[in-house]
């Protein structure tokens, strides 16, 4: 396999992490919504924590994206 095809395949593999982060972000918001509907009075006070969890989950997906870009544009 030549370098260019290995590069593209590697970038594609690295992009799997973005999908995993999508599951994580969906889980964060899904769990928040589920518990917010159980106790709507407490929901507003937890929005800061919601976005912290979102940021942490999203960051890992973005790192996967950055790795894919580094692999794709490395020479």
């Amino acid at each position, binding site marked *: 396999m030549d370098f260019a095809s290995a590069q593209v395949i590697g970038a594609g593999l690295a992009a799997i992490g973005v999908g995993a982060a999508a599951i994580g972000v969906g889980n964060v918001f899904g769990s928040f919504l589920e518990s917010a509907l159980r106790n709507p009075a407490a929901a507003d006070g937890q929005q*800061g924590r919601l976005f912290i969890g979102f*940021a942490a989950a999203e960051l890992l997906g973005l790192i996967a994206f950055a790795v894919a*870009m580094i692999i794709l*544009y490395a020479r």
Partner: protein
Amino acid sequence: MAEAGKIDPMHQFTVEPIAPLHIGGVDISFTNSSAWLLVTLVVIFGFMAMGMRRQLVPNRWQMAVEGLTGFIDDMVRVNIGPEGRRYMPYIFSLFSFILVSNLLGLLPLAIVPGLHSFTTTSHFSITGVLAVMSFSMVLIIGFWRHGFHFFSLFVPHGTPIVMVPLIFLIELISFMVRPFSLGLRLFVAMIAGHILMEVFGSFVVTGLNGGPVGWGVGALSFAFIVGVAALELLVSAIQAYVFALLTSLYLNDAINLH
């Protein structure tokens, strides 16, 4: 676009000098990045100046400005407490700068020939400096208020003595990673969104030359890109909010320890 038919999604992030200026071998040209930083500054100043008339009965513009400042004030008060009030201007500047430059980067100015909007926050040199500023503020405030007691941040209450070295190491690493994660998140989120829009935008254009199948692909891509544009507006706001929120949380660590 470099060659006909070739998609070059990274081209939009190139920094091009507008007025070249070299002093002593250092390139300090006025680039499109600096131009858009200036535009960001002008927009923020304009927005604030229009709403700072301090009327007893506020008009709409003043309501907008008060809503924005009230939002940040609320966030700082909830996350840091009453002592955080003096850091509110910094958090507010961070939030408004990131929000406005994210939104300016999304403006579809490229329909005017020769004009390209440039997202200043899509460069790690900008977001990295913002992150380092926040991080050094945390360090300075932490050591200034607590002295060497600041290191107790790395050892949570009730840690067994045996575990202290390990916990200290882990907490230290998670503390030192903060500026990178803070800067990386914003810059990668902006880059990813703009690449996505560029790629699907070029699908629309090349699809128009591809016969009936191409038109179908183009129409689908166009519908998709409308959704992505809406998502990007949301991401712009969320990233600005997350950056300000995390900065205030880190400041809370430095001010109140834990």
